[in-house]
């Protein structure tokens, strides 16, 4: 039996199912907690921290924290919004994000968060690290300049035996995403598309389909990311 508990978000009282993840509880109430690494139904990684909320005064990752009775959750406060904006800015300076030439532009979750928080300029210096592009597989381009290490691809894209097509290589500054060359040869069309759609940024791209949707008709041209969730609240 699922247990119903009381909790608050930004001072407002709600009831929800104990044990459910905070990002998902909030979404059901029409409250948007942003995510980049989380994907509903996939084991949470809690790696990007964009979902940071305060629970009873302490910072927690909303995508890994299960709901408990009497939680006092802060979500929409200047402090938290600034931390989220800082995370977005950090991701921008850490990779090489040339949005004007990016296939994902307009449909990219990282960029969309930059729009939502009106990032005019990152507060951190640009790294401009050299990163490679791997276009050696038949179906996919891996544009490593744009990887934000959310690990969605590693966790989600697997063959029939359960083997991951993607893996992380190296550590720290040298960390990079890589696609298994042997597995990639036999990757199905379905998996190729699934990988591209799972990637929140423009790092995994299906070859030959870039720039299909014109400017003005893309996902985030007119509406902010999170609007679909917030609509429930109106």
């Amino acid at each position: 039996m699922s247990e119903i508990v009381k909790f608050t978000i930004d001072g407002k009282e709600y009831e929800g199912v104990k044990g459910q993840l905070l990002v998902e509880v909030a979404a059901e109430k029409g409250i948007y907690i942003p995510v980049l690494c989380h994907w509903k139904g996939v084991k949470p990684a809690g790696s990007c921290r964009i979902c940071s909320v305060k629970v009873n005064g302490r910072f927690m990752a909303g995508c890994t924290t299960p709901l408990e009775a009497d939680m006092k959750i802060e979500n929409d406060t200047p402090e938290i919004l600034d931390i989220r904006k800082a995370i977005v800015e950090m991701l921008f300076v850490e990779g090489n994000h040339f949005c004007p030439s990016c296939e994902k532009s307009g449909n990219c979750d990282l960029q969309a968060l930059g729009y939502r928080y009106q990032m005019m300029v990152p507060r951190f210096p640009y790294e401009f690290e050299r990163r490679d592009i791997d276009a050696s597989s038949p179906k996919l381009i891996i544009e490593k300049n744009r990887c934000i290490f959310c690990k969605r691809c590693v966790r989600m894209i697997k063959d029939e035996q359960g083997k991951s097509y993607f893996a992380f290589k190296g550590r720290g500054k040298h960390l990079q995403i890589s696609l298994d060359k042997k597995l990639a040869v036999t990757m199905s069309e379905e998996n190729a598309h699934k990988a591209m759609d799972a990637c929140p940024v423009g790092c995994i791209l299906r070859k030959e389909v870039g720039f299909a949707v014109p400017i003005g008709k893309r996902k985030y041209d007119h509406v902010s990311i999170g609007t679909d969730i917030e609509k429930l609240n109106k």
Partner: protein
Amino acid sequence: MSKPIVATASLAGCFGCHMSLLDIDERILKLIELVEFNKSPIDDIKTFTKQCDIGIIEGGCCNSENIEVLKLFRKNCKILISLGECAIMGGLPAMRNGIPVKECLDEAYLNGPTVGENKEHIMPNDDELPMILDKVYPLHEIVKIDYYLPGCAPRADLIWAAVAALVTGDTLNIPYELVKFD
């Protein structure tokens, strides 16, 4: 009261941002009522003839001349605005930033597929040419920048809203659709 004075420049940019400024359509008539232009490609005034209020700069710094012009603008303008992705983060020219300059020049003048005619292997070396920098720098890494208007090019409505707000002193509320990075 005399009109606020505006100066503009394109450094390592493509002039697209200036084109977007012209894209404000008939509001350009209003603009020249509101402000006076000084050094700018728009009126072709080449040197500062007086202190300016607002300097608008497109493009990042890719060579020594860009830095010189940028510093000149900082000296002569009360407010400096970084206009567009190139000014804010180097933009497409900064795609070379992770690559050593020598590798870039070798590719451009010696090894690239279209340089077959360069039989003497000449690298541009005229003394008149500005020095190329180790990488393309965002403007705010060279001088203090007061405001940033992102986009490639920034939407004409964003430029208009920002300049009008600066000149009239009104608060600037930027609609969602005007802040874009492409």
